């Protein structure tokens, strides 16, 4: 490479008065396909949904921007809204810390030493995430029946003898946390393990030479170096937990008699219900908007406090 081409790469004019050569910025070319797709299949529909939240729906047909704030008032004063919000927040409060801590701990534990066990374990941890929703419910219906479950010996000491004793209104949120951890932790463990594999070998060796034991290496060196991934998991898990819908819907359809899960247990279930039964997409859009705002507030706090968007190269 010549000095001139290096100069043109950095965008400096080589002599006063010379016309600057038009230089295509590679970054814009690389980002273009995603930007177009994001606008078409992400931003566009999202803005459309926002318009719906201010629209009336009569006979299933939208009257755009005619509703003002009435959809918001109707949705947020609905008698099912507060219980659904409480259920979701209690689920989030449990599943996010357990999921994040559990996945980070297990990934660091696996990475502490290299052996053939790691590959086998990663596969075992990951496979439950591959099970589709309705089959997952089939598995847990059996697993949570104390008389036929392989884990029945853990449940019977509590006096639980039937599935209805295990899945109650009081315990159902813990059941969902268990199902969520079972189905999602493995994927995150695999991502963290991949991130740990990508760490600089020189840094890890230098820490060991300085006297770090395995625990100190994991906690003070490896954990901070993968913190970007941990924050990514925190934001993603928070978002996905706020949108819980599959577990309560399927448990409701698969439990007998007085189900501990109502059709409006979570915010997404309530939104789906308002949409399909009431034909009012505007109402369900207002609930979606609330979820986005809550997740955005949490993400803004995390991102601004940790300077998450700053890279070594860009601010």
């Amino acid at each position, binding site marked *: *490479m010549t000095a001139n081409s290096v100069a043109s*790469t950095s965008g400096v004019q080589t002599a006063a008065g010379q016309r600057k050569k038009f230089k295509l*910025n590679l970054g814009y070319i*690389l*980002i273009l396909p*995603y930007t177009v797709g*994001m606008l*078409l299949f*992400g*931003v566009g*529909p*999202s803005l*459309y949904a926002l318009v719906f939240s201010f629209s009336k729906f009569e006979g299933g047909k939208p009257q755009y921007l005619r509703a003002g704030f009435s959809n918001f008032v109707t949705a947020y004063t609905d008698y099912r809204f507060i219980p659904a919000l409480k259920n979701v927040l209690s689920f989030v409060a449990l599943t996010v810390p357990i999921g994040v801590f559990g996945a980070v701990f*297990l990934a660091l*534990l696996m990475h*502490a*030493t290299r*052996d053939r*066990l790691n590959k086998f*374990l990663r596969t075992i*941890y990951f*496979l*439950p*995430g*591959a099970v*589709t929703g*309705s*089959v997952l*419910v*089939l*598995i847990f*219906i*059996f697993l949570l029946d104390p008389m036929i479950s*392989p*884990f029945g010996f853990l449940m019977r000491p509590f006096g639980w003898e039937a599935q209805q004793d295990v899945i109650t209104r009081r315990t159902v949120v813990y059941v969902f946390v268990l199902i969520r951890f*079972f189905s999602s932790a493995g*994927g995150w463990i*695999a*991502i963290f393990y*991949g991130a740990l*594999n*990508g760490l600089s*070998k020189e840094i890890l060796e230098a820490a060991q030479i300085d006297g770090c034991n*395995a625990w100190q290496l994991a906690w003070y060196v490896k954990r901070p170096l993968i913190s*970007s991934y941990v924050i*990514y998991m925190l934001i993603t898990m928070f*978002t996905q937990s706020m949108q819980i819908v599959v577990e309560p819907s399927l448990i409701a*359809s698969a439990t*007998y008699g007085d189900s501990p899960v109502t059709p409006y247990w979570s915010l997404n279930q309530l939104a789906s219900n308002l*949409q399909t039964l009431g034909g009012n997409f505007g109402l369900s859009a207002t609930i*979606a*908007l609330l*979820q*986005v705002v809550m997740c*955005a507030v949490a*993400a803004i706090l995390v991102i601004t406090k940790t300077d998450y*968007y700053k*890279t*070594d*190269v860009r601010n």
Partner: protein
Amino acid sequence: MQSVRVAGQERSLMASIRSWYREWRRGSGIGPVAYVIRVLILVIVAIFFGVPLIWLFLAPTKSNAQLIELQPLAFGSLEYAYGAFQRLMAYNNGIVKRWFFNSVWYVGTAMVINLAVTVPAGYALAIADIKGRKALLWATLILMMTPVNALVLPMFMELHTLGLTNSAWALILPSSFAPFGVYLTFVYYKTVMPRDLIDAAKVDGCNEWQLFWNIGLPLAASLVGMLTFSRFRAMWNNFFMANTLIWSDPLRTLPVGVGVLISGTGAILPDNPWSQRSGIRRAEAALLGVITVLPVALVFLFSQRLLVRSATSGALKE
């Protein structure tokens, strides 16, 4: 003091133990006691994850009655499993095979496009000098937070206008441009391409294209592994959008077909008359679960090879 012979030399027992301990530490990085505790914890967790899967793989060998009467991890019979497989393949003129093929085709195509779009985009967001970088990151994050049920009607109307609803492209296109992979890629490049590496490359004369092609792309091997298994799993198990945007039975994906089949036949509920009439019971539902899991497991095993150790190892010499 007791002595042992090691490599032709007399040594005290304690010296031999100390020597073995040092060798162990050098090889594994942690002491033997810590190693045992580590293995115990990981194996206990593996039992929590693995036993339900073992149950799933054994369930097709047992009838509804045997699932209750036999021990949870007991094996039923191969004949029953084969019969379950035949009943499943016969259901609705072999529609399950069609669903499987559809899933492979939709997800395979979406994965290829997704990787081609996501890796360059994430690289650009982490490394390149572009205006609006933070705005794009925020937009990506907001999209990740937007509930699917909020997007389903607008997406349906948009795809309907383009004439793409009830077709493969109704799923392929939105999946190809999903924001999760881009965010992960941004995080990855933020971590693996420090300033020193980029400066060293520029001092060596790399322009932006060469930086991406000769350094950024080769470093993407681990990333491709991560994206492949995480995005493949998400796309393969996509239910809500797949159920809404495609309604013809022959065009459905396998997870949606499983959901429709199980809820339509009541296979999960015991002694359900519809289930008995259709021949689809819990064993067949479990077998469907196994068929759904296998491709994701294969993709995961393949992508593990790409999660190589320290992609930048040796790239920087301080």
